[in-house]
């Protein structure tokens, strides 16, 4: 993996004494979509803010494309676009002016053709002369994205891009993100919506209380999620698992009333039919059956719970 952003032992303690990040290490691959998942106050925004240069880290370092983000800040910041969580926009500027302002601020020469295309891609072009205060929340979000992309960054940070956004706009956002990735932009987004991470991310990082608990390929995660459990309730309790069933991944509950069969939906055969026949041959009678599937949400909740004292 070629890392475009490399974070080493990053910690941040605010003046108030609040420790927002604890020894975070993370490599972000060139061209990937990484979703940082975590509850409110987990440290997602602090992490993004440090990489973008808004907040200074207490310890640790960040390098972007091989350049340190403090000593070589001009190079690193020029590569980064940031869409903040809050709809922080001026009131009286027009869409066109604010986007042009952003482009210049990041040291790029005027390029009206590029900005026009950018606004068209974000369905903002017909609003280009509108004042920002006259725009809806969703439109403002688009303007923030346009501002972040105005200087053609290689890396885009989206801080909770779909918080408080309706379903349609959320799907729109996802499409925008995918299109950007296809054009070669590396995207890091924070979210507390699990389905969002599931929908668009290549990798998922879980962060809580300033600690990065897990960073995993989405496919690997989904594979773990692909595990299902078939729970079989027995008519009569069994004192032990009959030897003929030993070959199956079966577990007998302590009270002897339930058998739990764990299988992988992704594999070619789940073995359910054989297992059920084996149960019948062993002389056990079934009362009921149900299926349990762990979701990303379960994994997430488990991870977050473990950290709690």
């Amino acid at each position, binding site marked *: 993996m070629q890392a475009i952003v490399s974070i080493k032992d990053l910690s941040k303690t605010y*003046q108030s004494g609040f420790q927002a990040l604890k020894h975070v290490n993370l490599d972000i691959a060139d061209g990937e979509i990484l979703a940082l998942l975590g509850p409110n106050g987990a440290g997602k925004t602090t992490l993004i803010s440090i990489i973008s240069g*808004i907040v200074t880290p207490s310890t640790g370092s960040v390098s972007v494309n091989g350049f340190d983000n403090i000593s070589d800040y001009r190079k690193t*910041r020029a590569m980064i676009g*940031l869409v903040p969580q809050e709809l922080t926009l001026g009131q009286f500027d027009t869409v066109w002016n604010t986007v042009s*302002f952003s482009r210049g601020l990041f040291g*790029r*020469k005027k390029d009206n053709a590029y900005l026009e295309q950018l606004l068209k891609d974000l369905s903002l072009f017909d609003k280009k002369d509108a004042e920002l205060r006259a725009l809806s929340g969703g439109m403002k979000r688009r303007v923030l994205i346009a501002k972040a992309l105005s200087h053609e960054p290689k890396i885009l940070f989206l801080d909770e891009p779909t918080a408080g956004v309706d379903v349609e706009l959320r799907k729109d956002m996802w499409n925008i993100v995918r299109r950007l990735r296809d054009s070669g932009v590396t995207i890091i987004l924070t979210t507390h919506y699990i389905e969002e991470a599931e929908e668009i991310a290549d990798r998922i990082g879980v962060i809580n209380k300033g600690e990065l608990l897990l960073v995993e390929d989405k496919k690997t995660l989904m594979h773990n999620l692909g595990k299902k459990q078939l729970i079989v309730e027995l008519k009569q309790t069994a004192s032990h698992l009959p030897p003929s069933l030993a070959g199956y991944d079966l577990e007998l509950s302590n009270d002897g009333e339930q058998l739990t069969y764990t299988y992988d939906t992704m594999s070619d055969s789940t073995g359910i039919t054989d297992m059920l026949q084996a149960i019948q041959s062993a002389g056990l009678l079934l009362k009921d059956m149900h299926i349990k599937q762990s979701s990303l949400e379960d994994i997430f909740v488990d991870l977050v719970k473990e950290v709690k004292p």
Partner: protein
Amino acid sequence: MNFQAIRVIFHQEMLRAWETLFQSLASPVISTCLYFIVFGSAIGSRIENIDGVPYGLFIVPGLTMLSLLTQSIANASFGIFFPKFTGTIYEIHSAPISHFEILIGYVGAAATKSLIIGIIILFTASFFVELNIAHPVWMVTFLILTCISFSLFGFIIGLWANDFEKLQVIPLLVITPLVFLGGSFYSVNMLPPFWQSVTLFNPVVYLISGFRWSFFEVSDVSVGVSLAMIVGFLVICIAIVGWMFRTGYRVKQ
């Protein structure tokens, strides 16, 4: 050097004044006219010449400085305070731009605006009195130095203020008294000896005195001292801004 960034900050700040053109220009022009009518014509006609200069003419440099100081501070403090207030400052912090470039953009725009206002006020004054400027080059030098140093001072206030009240308190409680007591409308020599000495602690006295000298060649303190004071003030402001940026005081977490 990120010249594009300086350009857009400067442009944005000038645009803000342009959009509120009427307020930006009308208020200094109207207040100047009022001062001229009240102090210059109505009261001034009963006041004898000061240092050989008719009263109406005598107050021109002080009046110009009065507007220049308040406008420089207001423009620069508001220019940097507003992005802090709305939160749009995040963009400046995340941009590949040095503190020096931010400073040039904001302070440059504020100083330019006040310079334009200063020129308009002098132009307005020329309708009321016959202006003869003895040392135009020095006059322009004082004008520019004042605009830059007080815009810097305003920038410091804008960085320091974290609410609207703080933004107003220094201009209102410090600057306005200093300017009124700084010899805008009188010569320091007209005060009793004790107050003359007190006045010498007021930096605005040196500013107005030097500026007035460039018009009429009369001054309360020597021109060299005036010049040294204004340059000193400029250096102090630069040092404070430098310190604020370096330590991130009220700027960055």
